[in-house]
């Protein structure tokens, strides 16, 4: 080996060393020096998550970070899909991840692994109970049990004596907690509560859901208040109430908004609509992660985005067509 080749080889080696040093130094900044954030959140087929996605993208643009939204295609294989997406996300070594802890049993392991790998994690939407012990930066969202309690309070105030909580995703900790909070506070007020779990074979078939609710109302005529956990369900419940001739006796309130639920609030067919503001959850989640990475600043403790209580008094502002994409309602 002559001198020249040895020099070239040495040069290449040195170059290789310096690039690898450079890479490990500045975490995973991309070529432009931007931080990279990956989100693992809910399916975009749900208007709720459509609004959340808009929030994350707007925040990423405002903060000047590289961002990607990943999500399962639907709700039917949620545990496995979420666990896999978190794994894929962390193997790409982003600087931060924004994760909805919808199914803690499936996701906690991945979240812990991400934190151990030095990835900053912000938990949003679901996971108010355990974000601290997982080592997340913060939590942005609502306390599901407290939302259920708020629904009970509003129904009790309008004279409910027998409430029915309709759970369209039985087994999901978030929906179970809302029904549980509703049940506890209705019962604390000395009133009765029924929980109606809708079977999987009715999902995506509004006719079956309407008839199921009609059946439950017909079978027990003492039910005079319904609490639904999603805007689509609220529409189905209102239809069951109207078609079944229960309009005089049964009042409906819901969590989460759509244009039709907001119009129903305006028209007095829905007594309240509890908005957890998914756009804000996405926006703050990404913004907090970006500001922490860039400046080392962050909120202390959880950030509460819900429930924002929408009733006849304040619905007009919410119904402004220009705010539609921010509400997730069309």
């Amino acid at each position: 080996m002559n001198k020249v080749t040895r020099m070239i080889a040495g040069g290449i080696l040195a170059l290789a060393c310096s690039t690898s040093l450079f890479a490990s130094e500045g975490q995973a900044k991309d070529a432009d020096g931007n931080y990279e954030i990956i989100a693992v959140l809910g399916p975009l087929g749900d208007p709720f998550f459509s609004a959340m996605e808009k929030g994350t993208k707007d925040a990423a643009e405002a903060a000047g970070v590289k961002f990607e939204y990943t999500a399962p295609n639907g709700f039917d294989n949620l545990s496995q899909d979420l666990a896999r997406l978190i794994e894929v996300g962390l193997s790409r070594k982003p600087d931060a991840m924004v994760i909805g802890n919808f199914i803690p049993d499936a996701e906690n392991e991945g979240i812990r692994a991400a934190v151990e790998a030095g990835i900053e994690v912000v938990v949003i939407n679901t996971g108010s109970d355990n974000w601290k012990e997982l080592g997340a930066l913060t939590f942005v969202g609502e306390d599901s049990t407290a939302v259920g309690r708020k629904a009970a309070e509003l129904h009790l105030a309008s004279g409910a004596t027998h409430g029915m909580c309709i759970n369209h995703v039985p087994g999901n900790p978030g929906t179970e907690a809302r029904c549980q909070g509703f049940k506890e506070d209705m019962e604390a007020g000395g009133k009765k509560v029924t929980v109606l779990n809708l079977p999987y074979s009715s999902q995506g078939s509004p006719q079956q859901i309407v008839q199921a609710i009609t059946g439950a109302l017909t079978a027990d005529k003492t039910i005079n208040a319904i609490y639904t956990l999603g805007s689509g369900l609220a529409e189905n419940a209102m239809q069951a109430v109207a078609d079944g001739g229960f309009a005089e006796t049964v009042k409906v309130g819901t969590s989460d908004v759509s244009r039709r639920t907001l119009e129903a609030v305006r028209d007095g067919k829905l007594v309240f609509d509890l908005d957890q503001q998914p756009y804000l959850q996405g926006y703050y989640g990404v913004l907090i992660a970006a500001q922490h990475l860039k400046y080392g600043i962050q909120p202390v403790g959880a950030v509460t985005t819900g429930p924002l209580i929408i009733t006849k008094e304040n619905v007009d502002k919410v119904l402004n067509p220009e705010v539609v994409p921010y509400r997730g309602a069309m």
Partner: protein
Amino acid sequence: MSSDITRQAPPATDSSSLGKFLGDTMRRPEFGAFIGTLTVFVFFAVVTSGNGFLTWRGTAGWLNVAAELGIVAVPVALLMIGGELDLSVGSVIGATSVLVAVATGIYGAPIWLSIALALALGVGVGLFNGIVTVRTGLPSFIVTLVSMLALAGLALGLTRFLVGTPNVSLSVEGAWRFLFAGKWGPASISIIWWVLVSLVAGWVLFRTQFGNWIQATGGDRQSAREAGIRTDRVKITLFILTAVAAVLVGVIQTMTFNGGEATRGQVYVFNSIIATVIGGVLLQGGYGSPIGVMLGAMTFGIVNVGIFYTGWSSDWAQLLLGLLLLAAVLTNNLFRRLAMRA
């Protein structure tokens, strides 16, 4: 068909011809399904006593559910008798609902144009499913799985791209609403569509040459071909009919529930197969009756709605449906064996 029964039924009073009549009836492909429907109806009538299941509202409730399912399940049954499956019906329902809601609700297209576009979509999906299945020889399970996924993705992506959310409102009034979402009290006009679809399908299958071709195609494709039947055309036609039926349900749902959702309808894939199997259609093809499937859809409706009139925990609904499916398949097997022996 009832006309069949009356023609075969002798006017006589002697016991041997009465026995023959009973035997003939029992051997009809619908008989097992009829017994199933009757059993669950009586079961729910008894356990919901006084809860309103037997009222007009309760009856219309399960009929509405059965109707929307039956409109899809009956053509799916013809396709299964012809030896193929269609998993894309759910995506067609969802895509139709957003197509109509976006075209009319957002862009202001006249409703007839939106419906025509949806029909074109249905024919297109049916042609794709049919031609690819026939030309490539791939199982229709795979081909329609592809169109199910592709169409669901396309509907969701396009809707979100165009309007920013997968859930679009639309309210239609007047004659079009009456035609697809008209109501008499709690009963929907979809029940009439369902009965019409079932009767026409029954007539086609048992009274026309095309019906013979369907049964021959699903029973023994090779001999059907040798007998000069264009089995590929039969199959393509059946795929188109299934997709068009899904479009009809999509339009009915969009008007009944005042809007479209890209993700709606997937549950119909499974539920339509449940209804056809309860209705006595052979999964292997070649055997079954649209009237049986009509009864299968009724059974599905009675169980799925009836359970909520019992006041029991609805967690049991699926268990009951599973057990029922097993019972239905076993009874159908029994009666089919009787029929074959005849």
